[in-house]
C-alpha cells in the first residue's frame, strides 16, 4: 500500500500551472498582486459603477431579494462569464466568487485550492479582460495613518 498513491496523495489531476498554460507571471502590468489586494468584480456589461437606482450595489452583493434586482439577476449575471469561451473554469470561478463579495488574493487561492502564483496569473488575465479590478491595499511604503491604526485598536478591543 505504501508504495502507491491514491486520490489526493497522487497530486492534482491537472498540474496547477497547466491552468496558466505554463505562465508564471501575470501578463497584467500591475505590480505583483499583494496577498491582501482585494479583487473586485467589474459590473456586468461594462456599465461602469452601479447605476444610481440600484442602491449603488455594484459588487453583486444584491442577493437575498434586494428589490432592485429581479430574482434571477444573479444567474443571468453569471451567464455572461460562462459564455466567454476564452475563460478557463478557474477564471469563471474567480469572477463569480468576486461578484458575491470582493475577495483577497489569498482567499481566492485558498478557496480554489490553487497556489498563489497560479491565482495571480489568472487574476492578471481577468484584469486584462476587464472582468475584475484590484484595489491596492495601503501602499507598502507608507504605513497606514494614525487614524486607521486607532480604528484598528478600537475594533480589536471590541472583539
Amino acid at each position, binding site marked *: 500500500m505504501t508504495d502507491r498513491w491514491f486520490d489526493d496523495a497522487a497530486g492534482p489531476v491537472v498540474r*496547477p*500551472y497547466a491552468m496558466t498554460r505554463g505562465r508564471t507571471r501575470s501578463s497584467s502590468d500591475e505590480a*505583483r498582486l*499583494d*496577498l*491582501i*489586494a*482585494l479583487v*473586485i468584480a467589474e459590473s456586468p456589461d461594462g456599465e461602469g*459603477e*452601479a447605476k*444610481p437606482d440600484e*442602491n*449603488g*450595489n*455594484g*459588487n453583486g*452583493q*444584491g442577493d*437575498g*431579494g*434586494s428589490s432592485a434586482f429581479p430574482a434571477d439577476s444573479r444567474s443571468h449575471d453569471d451567464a455572461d462569464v460562462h459564455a466567454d469561451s476564452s475563460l478557463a473554469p478557474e477564471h469563471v470561478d474567480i469572477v463569480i466568487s468576486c461578484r458575491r463579495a*470582493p475577495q*483577497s488574493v*489569498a*482567499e481566492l*487561492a*485558498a*478557496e480554489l485550492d490553487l*497556489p*498563489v*502564483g*497560479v491565482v495571480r496569473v489568472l487574476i492578471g488575465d481577468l484584469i486584462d479582460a476587464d472582468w475584475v479590478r484590484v*484595489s491596492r*491595499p*495601503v*501602499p*507598502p511604503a507608507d*504605513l*497606514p*495613518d*494614525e487614524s*486607521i*491604526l*486607532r*480604528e*484598528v*485598536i478600537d*475594533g*480589536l*478591543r471590541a*472583539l
Partner: protein
Amino acid sequence: MAFGRFKRGATASPAEPVTLKILVAGGFGVGKTTLVGAVSEIKPLRTEETLTEAGRPVDDTAGVEAKSTTTVAMDFGRITINEGLVLYLFGTPGQDRFWFLWDELAQGALGAVVLVDTRRLEDSFAGIDYFERRGIPFTVAVNHFDGADVYPAESVREALDLDAEVPIMVCDARRRESVRDVLVSVVEHALRRATLAQQNEPHPAPAR
C-alpha cells in the same frame, strides 16, 4: 439585506475596504495557527505557494534535472474591523529556508507577533532578527504551554536581548481575549512608531 449601504449610492465610487495585515512568526509547533484561529472570523485558510528551487534567490542549479518543487503553506485568518477595514493575519512559513517568502508577506505589514515557546527560545530568533532588521513593529508573545515553566516576561526579554521598546507579554494562543490583547499591543506599538516618526519629520528645527 444591505442596511447601511444605501449611502454608497451617493458617493461616486463605493468605498472599498482597506486591507491590512499582521504577521505571526515563530518556530514550528509554537501555536501560530492556533493563535490565528482564536481570533479569526473564518476557520484559518491555507494558501500555498509552489516554488521551484530555481526560483530561489540563491540559485546555483544549472541543470533542469536539479530542479525540484516545494510547497510552502501559509495559514491565514481574517478579522473584519468594520465595513471599511479588514485585518488579515498570516502565519509565516516556519522553516528558515523560506525567509525570502517573508519579504513578500512583510511588505506593507502593519506589524508582527513573534510567538515564543520558552522551552525552545532559539526557534524565535529568526523572526525577531527579521523584524528588527526590517524595522517592522512587533510584539513578543510568550505562549504559555501547560506543563512548561512560567518565566516572568522580563526574564524572557533579557534572554532574547530585546530592545526596551519591544512589548513582551505572556499569552494563551487558544484564548480569544488573550490573542486580542497581543494584537492590540502590536498595533499600539505601530502607532507609537508612527507618532514618533511624525514628530521627527515635519518639524524642521526653527532657524535662529
